[in-house]
């Protein structure tokens, strides 16, 4: 890969004014945009306020020293991957080693050698750009949660058992709807619809892992576990219905017909993991719970209720979420009856 000579946004953190000036000057000569902080606390405030590409960090500082900054960065999801180049005196290499162990990318010895400065800063910048690209790519094709997991744990096929809530959502009588309008209108409707439904799901820590035709499948509680994934799934469902109502009001104003959706949620053990090949894989869940969720969703048409859930999902809901017991139902292909509840919207 070609080394990058694009300017980066640098943050120089040093309590010594001469050092700050020198570093700033050297970086600016290389075309970078530089901001400075006098100590670690100020640096953290600046890092949280605006984006930077590389930090040049002194170890010895009052208020908050370099070690403390590294610790704070590690704890911050947004800043964890930001490359840090330590700047230190030649007689404190033992402390630099500790910094590298704590996650610093590289180091520079003061007084500065401009050639080394350029090489190390550009290398860090290149790494940062690669990581950003990777993250962007992952986010385009996967959900933020899956992207984060991939970035953190790397990629491996194979699955594990987890307890999760699975949601299916479908547009009702979509076939009739699409027969009565132009294909381009159908695609536009689907795009608008999916765009609207994503927010309630991701906003409640869910992962949309399948979109097919007018249907979508989402998982709550995996790949990242959340204690109250059942309530999160139902909350997402309620917000989806709300969103749809606003969407329908707009459609009516435009002289178009309303659309209705059905949502089914079931909770239980699923096998979650990546399926596919090393080159193309998706995060998914399989198992009986997935089938139950699909069957329950299908039943919304019969029941005339927008959101149906199974008993195990219901047990995870707070009292504030009202449900109506629809009794036990036997679904096609299932031996055991399943008790179904309708969520009040």
């Amino acid at each position: 890969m070609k080394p990058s000579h694009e300017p980066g946004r640098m943050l120089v953190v040093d309590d010594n004014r001469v050092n700050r000036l020198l570093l700033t000057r050297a970086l600016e000569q290389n075309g970078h945009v530089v901001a400075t902080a006098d100590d670690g606390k100020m640096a953290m405030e600046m890092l949280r306020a605006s984006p930077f590409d590389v930090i040049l960090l002194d170890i010895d500082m009052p208020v908050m020293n370099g070690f403390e900054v590294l610790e704070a960065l590690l704890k911050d999801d947004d800043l964890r991957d930001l490359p840090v180049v330590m700047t230190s005196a030649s007689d404190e290499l033992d402390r630099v080693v500790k910094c590298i162990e704590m996650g610093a990318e590289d180091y520079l010895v003061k007084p500065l050698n401009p050639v080394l400065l350029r090489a190390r800063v550009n290398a860090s910048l290149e790494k940062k750009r690669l990581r950003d690209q990777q993250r962007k790519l992952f986010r385009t094709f996967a959900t933020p949660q899956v992207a984060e997991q991939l970035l953190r744990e790397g990629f491996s096929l194979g699955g594990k058992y987890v307890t999760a809530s699975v949601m299916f959502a479908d547009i009702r009588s979509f076939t009739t709807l699409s027969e009565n309008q132009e294909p381009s209108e159908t695609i536009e409707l689907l795009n608008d619809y999916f765009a609207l439904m994503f927010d309630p799901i991701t906003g409640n820590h869910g992962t949309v892992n399948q979109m097919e035709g007018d249907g979508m499948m989402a998982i709550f509680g995996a790949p990242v576990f959340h204690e109250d994934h059942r309530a999160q799934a139902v909350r997402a469902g309620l917000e989806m219905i709300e969103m749809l109502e606003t969407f329908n009001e707009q459609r009516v104003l435009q002289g178009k017909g309303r659309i209705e959706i059905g949502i089914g949620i079931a909770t239980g053990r699923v096998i979650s993991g990546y399926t596919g090949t090393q080159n193309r894989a998706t995060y998914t869940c399989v198992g009986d719970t997935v089938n139950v969720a699909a069957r329950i969703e299908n039943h919304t048409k019969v029941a005339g209720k927008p959101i149906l859930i199974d008993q195990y999902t219901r047990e995870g809901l707070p009292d504030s979420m009202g449900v109506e017991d629809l009794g036990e139902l036997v679904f096609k292909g299932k031996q055991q009856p399943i008790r179904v509840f309708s969520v009040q919207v």
Partner: protein
Amino acid sequence: MPVIDQKIFADLKQMSGEEFINELIETFLDDAPNLLTEVRSALGSKDADSFRRAAHSLKSNAMTFGAMKLADLAKDLERLGKENRLAQVGDQLTALEEAVKSACEELKGLKS
């Protein structure tokens, strides 16, 4: 030992440019007295960590400009601070003050 190592200073000047080296010297002339005050008051209040940090800063700047004698003296004091042996500073502080003074004078002359 010369007060300012000409080779180091020339390299610094080449790297930073004529105009900027003046700004850099000005900054040091501004900051050096403050750092000395910090060293002195940290010694007075027996604050080994502040003592170490101020000596470290002086050392760092001295090395940047090639003021090697000042750098050596500051480095010794930094070590005393680090090892919590402030009682042994003695007349090394006076030597440091003199080294700062002569480094500052020399640097004033090197401004263009």
